[in-house]
């Protein structure tokens, strides 16, 4: 494939702490992910998966190395610029949903539109977009529910709708099914596969080989480095017992 990659990193390092207690959470990660891929990231606990995801999601900055997101070098952007990138190019799905409490599903989904500096939409427009996004994740009848009135699976659907609303180039999901029972997990995975089929690029961290094996590509991380990178269902991650 000769198209421009969505993600291209070169030798990413993330060092926590200083001097003797310094920990290299990432120790030279170079990956390339192309548009339309659905990638799982696996690896033992503490191997640096979340650290990598946070950097890929522009929530955190690498200590060293380069990260080119959809053709734009974002390694050295300032906070304001990173916020704009998160808003326009990225959709993040967290294990713990990270929805605003005491705020309806609709308003949660509208939130990214509020911070969209390029498009000034009317409140009606934003509401309409949020309703459509909620409908696309199967929650048309839950728009006015607050997070505490929703099940875990429903909360994660709201979070996915929120991640989708700005039409991002990349969806990042850090253990999206980590807090869910298996039935809800499969529903969420079905939804993610659906989104993939519709052309979305998805990078997902998971502990469950079961879930990982349905993705095209599995990247295995250990001690802050890419241990293996297998395509087409191949999974050579050292399993089981690596996860928690």
């Amino acid at each position, binding site marked *: 494939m000769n198209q421009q990659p969505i993600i291209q990193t070169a030798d990413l390092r993330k060092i926590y702490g200083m001097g003797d207690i310094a920990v290299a959470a990432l120790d030279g990660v170079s990956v390339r992910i192309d548009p339309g891929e659905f990638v799982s990231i696996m690896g033992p606990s503490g191997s640096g998966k979340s650290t990598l995801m946070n950097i890929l999601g522009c929530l955190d900055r690498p200590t060293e190395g380069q990260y080119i997101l959809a053709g734009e070098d974002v390694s050295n952007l300032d906070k304001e610029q990173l*916020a704009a990138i998160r808003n326009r190019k990225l959709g993040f799905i967290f294990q713990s949903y990270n929805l605003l409490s005491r705020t309806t599903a609709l308003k949660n989904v509208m939130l990214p539109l*509020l911070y969209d500096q390029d498009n000034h939409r009317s409140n009606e427009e934003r509401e309409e977009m949020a309703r459509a996004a909620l409908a696309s994740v199967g929650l048309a009848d839950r728009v006015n529910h607050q997070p505490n009135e929703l099940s875990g699976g429903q909360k994660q659907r709201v979070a996915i709708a929120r991640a989708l609303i700005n039409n991002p180039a990349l969806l990042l999901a850090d253990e999206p099914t980590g807090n869910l029972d298996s039935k809800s997990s499969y529903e969420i995975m079905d939804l993610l596969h659906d989104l993939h089929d519709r052309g979305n690029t998805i990078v997902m961290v998971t502990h469950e080989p079961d879930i990982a094996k349905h993705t095209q590509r599995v990247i295995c991380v250990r001690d802050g480095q890419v241990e293996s990178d297998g395509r087409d269902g191949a999974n050579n991650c050292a399993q089981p017992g690596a996860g928690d």
Partner: protein
Amino acid sequence: MNFSEILHVAWEGITANKIRSLLTMLGIIIGVAAVIVMIAISAGTEATIAEQINSLGANLIIVTPKRGTPGASRTLLYDDAEAIAEEVHGITGVASEQTTTTLIVKSTDTALEMTATGTTADFPEVRDVPVGDGRFFTQQELDRTAKVAVLGYGIAIDLFGDADSSGADPIGQTVTIGATKFTVVGVMAEKGLVADVDYDGRIYIPITVVFQKFLPSQMAADRVRTIYAQAESQETMESAILQIESLLARRHDVELDSPDFVVQTQQDIISAQEATTAAFRSLLAWVAGVSLIVGGIGIMNIMLVSVTERTREIGIRQSVGATPNDIRWQFLTEALMLSLVGGLIGVVAGVGGSWIFGASGDMRTVIVPTSIVLAFGSAAIVGVFFGYFPANKAAQLDPIDALRHE
């Protein structure tokens, strides 16, 4: 985010915790209300003083010698008063005043130690101090240094008892002032204490008698302490003052820009009085200002707590694209809103409180519009000032740290 969205988000932040927001605003409410009430009270006091001073004669021009004028060969003389009466246009009356040294004043059964006030026939009219009983002395009596006296309301009672009950009618009686016997021809109406002068405690005698009998020998015999001139109207005041100044400068042979006399109006005296209350007022302003600052610290405190409590919310907003500026504005607007809503409630409370004070107590209050602007404006400034630090703290949070916050 546009302005209305920022307002909306801030409003939701405030209403999410209504009781706490109200308590936070309390400091501002009290501060703003205090500024308005205190200024209303001091303005009320000043208005009362101003009215009293104005009650001592309308359109009054007051001429006094200038103390400590170097080389002033002459001071204010009785002739000066007569010249003003004759030559100045636009005035309706002139009265001059000179006080005796302290003397013994006796009726048949009472003796008092006091001064007597020598004045002229126009006095009641010019000073707006009307005669209650009998009459004031006349120009003829003045010219022939008649030994007649008019008693202040309180002095009449002191010397002759309360005429309404058992006391004798003072009119026609004799009082001895120093060694001279005077016939009482009138008693002044009750006036009370005005600008620290007890008008009821005075005895008026013809100024010519004072010159003749009661001045220390080293003083020029016809020296007066004050000349009062009454202008026809507010409009003629200025021209009358100019005429008096040039007339006296000419008579005293001094330059107009370095006179040996001072020409004042009631407004000048009111201003001088206000200067004495200004210290009191600035103390009140300080007290009110401090309570506003305390209110501001309350806002800062709560905003800091709120930023900590809502760290996760901040992280969520940042993760979907809120910039540091968006976050800063959100919390700054919240602080500002708290102080403005508090300020608004404070204005209502202050205006209402001033009104209740004025209506119920014996304290007079005048609500000063600028005090409302001042208090409300201060509340806004306090909000921005004390809101900035917490807002900035929120804005500087790292998205990843904020999201991890428990």
